[in-house]
């Protein structure tokens, strides 16, 4: 429980290096500026409309915003190591100070500024920064495990009971005839459950997730035998990044449940990892069985699969905001349609 509180505290400061966060700051500040413009135009009678007021404000606001966003992105690492409240105070102070500083050239040119232009602009910028930080904190809280612990648990720690009992059954069948293989299978099963029961909010090296997938597929091979063919197309040296736990394994589980098990002759599950410039593309494919099933099975299968996809998409959004994406497609192929799931991740690990 104590562990819990510390985590929430850590989650609260947004990752300023993240494009999505930058976009939110930009939009949020402009939204507040527009609100201010509306208030001003209402207060000053018909002197100037809200749009021209906003344009007026923009000239001062935009450079300030860009300066602050850049500064935050550069200082992201050190800031995230500060205690939460201290970091927030530092950001508010920086916004206020930089606003006053930028105001100096304007105050020379301007005639209609208030009695204390420097102080009022510093207060305004500080207020906007405070409001945005408060928004980010609320947002982090809304997504934080402390609030939606049950939901996150439901999202991640799901292994199909179907898989567990079938695997145990397969192991039991091996104990007398192939005790060594049974031993190995139980070890793999234990390893899988260790990960399932771990704290899911932490990130794991990609290599660990790949190894886990390998163990999982090994167990499935035990049950399915020759029906399951796994093709790995991954580079010898894996990119050194951290990823959300159990990001790929549930997708493989789906690939087998919906793609391989309904086929009496089985099929191929392909795992492809393609590093690009500053992104990593992970692609999983399996036979699309919806096409050859006669009726409703197809629809039910799709639903179950969509749920898992939505779960992982939500978790990716939680960790990477807009920088990661998950796409699915059905590719028509001569040998039968192929179902593909593609995850694109940024090369840098998200800060935690």
């Amino acid at each position, binding site marked *: 429980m104590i562990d819990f509180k510390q985590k929430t505290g850590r989650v609260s400061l947004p990752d300023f290096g993240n494009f999505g966060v930058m976009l939110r700051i930009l939009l949020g500040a402009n939204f507040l500026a527009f609100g201010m413009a509306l208030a001003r135009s209402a207060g000053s009678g018909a002197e100037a409309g809200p749009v021209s007021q906003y344009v007026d404000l923009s000239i001062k606001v935009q450079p300030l915003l860009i300066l602050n966003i850049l500064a935050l992105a550069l200082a992201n690492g050190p800031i995230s190591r500060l205690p939460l409240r201290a970091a927030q105070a530092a950001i508010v102070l920086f916004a206020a100070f930089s606003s006053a500083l930028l105001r100096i050239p304007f105050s020379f040119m301007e005639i209609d500024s208030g009695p204390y232009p420097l102080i009022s602009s510093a207060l305004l910028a500080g207020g906007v920064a405070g409001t945005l930080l408060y928004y980010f904190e609320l947002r982090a809280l809304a997504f934080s495990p402390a609030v939606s612990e049950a939901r996150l648990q439901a999202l991640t720690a799901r292994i199909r009971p*179907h898989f567990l*009992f079938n695997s145990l*059954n397969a192991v039991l069948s091996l104990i007398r005839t192939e005790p060594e293989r049974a031993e190995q299978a139980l070890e793999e099963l234990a390893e899988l459950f260790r990960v399932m029961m771990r704290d899911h909010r932490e990130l794991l090296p990609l290599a660990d997730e790949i190894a886990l997938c390998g163990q999982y597929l090994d167990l499935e091979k035990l049950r399915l*035998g020759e029906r399951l063919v796994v093709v790995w197309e991954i580079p010898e040296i894996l990119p050194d990044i951290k990823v959300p736990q159990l990001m790929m394994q549930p997708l493989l589980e789906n690939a087998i449940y919906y793609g391989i*098990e309904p086929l009496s002759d089985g099929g191929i599950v392909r795992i492809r990892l393609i590093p690009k410039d500053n992104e990593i593309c992970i692609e999983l494919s399996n036979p699309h069985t919806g096409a050859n099933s006669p*009726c409703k099975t197809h629809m039910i299968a799709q639903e179950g699969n969509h749920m898992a996809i939505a779960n992982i998409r939500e978790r990716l959004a939680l960790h990477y905001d807009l920088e990661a994406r998950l796409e699915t497609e059905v590719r028509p192929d001569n040998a039968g349609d192929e179902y593909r799931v593609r995850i694109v991740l940024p090369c840098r690990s998200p800060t935690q």
Partner: protein
Amino acid sequence: MNPTPPLSVMIVDDEAPARARLRALLSGIADEMPNTVAAEAANGKLAMDALEANPVDVLLVDIRMPKMGGIELARHLLQCEKPPAVIFVTAYDTHAVEAFELNAIDYLVKPVRAQRLLAALQKIPRPTEADGAFSESAAQVLSALQGEARAYLSCHERGRMLLIPVNEILYLKADLKYVTARTTQREYLLDESLTRLEQEFSERFIRLHRSVLVAREAVAGFEKNTTDETDTQWYALLRGVPEKLPVSRRQWPLVKSYAKNLTS
């Protein structure tokens, strides 16, 4: 002493280790319950094929299998004259297990324990005790449980049971007492109602006429009867067979809108 012949058992499961496990358990309880594993099958369809050559007393049937699952297999078996006993073996399916409990359908959960298997085999009713009422209710429970359309329809012909893959059926036509299923090769007589079939296979078949359901993918096109100017009659043309099926005036708007989607 009247020595009873050993119980002949068929194991139906798509996973080889699961079959091996049941075989081991059966040989383990052979002292208490003499038995022989007469056959093994990897799915429901293969089990039906194997039964033809090799009738057995009891089938141990997994529920989730490719091609034909356990529930559908049991439904077809109930159509047999002397249906063998079926014991479902399932890894995890609370929904099915509840239904089995309520309706006294026997089942085992994986991993199966020897004692449970023995108890289930001992409970099997003697063939003479099989009464119609039970199989009637069982048929209903199973059809409700399957929740999805069958992959095959069964048909009796000269004492044999034939399985017709639903995706080979071009159309279903009701004549007086029977429903005929037409494939590219031949016709089969079914003992089912067209209305039920329409409900079950609504995704695959479309109604052309009060007494005709056609497979959507079998429709090649439509043709207007030009002999009579005042009363236009549309016909559906089919792939693979020369017959033309009349489309009723009432169904035409629906069929036409479907045909439009087909071409666009």
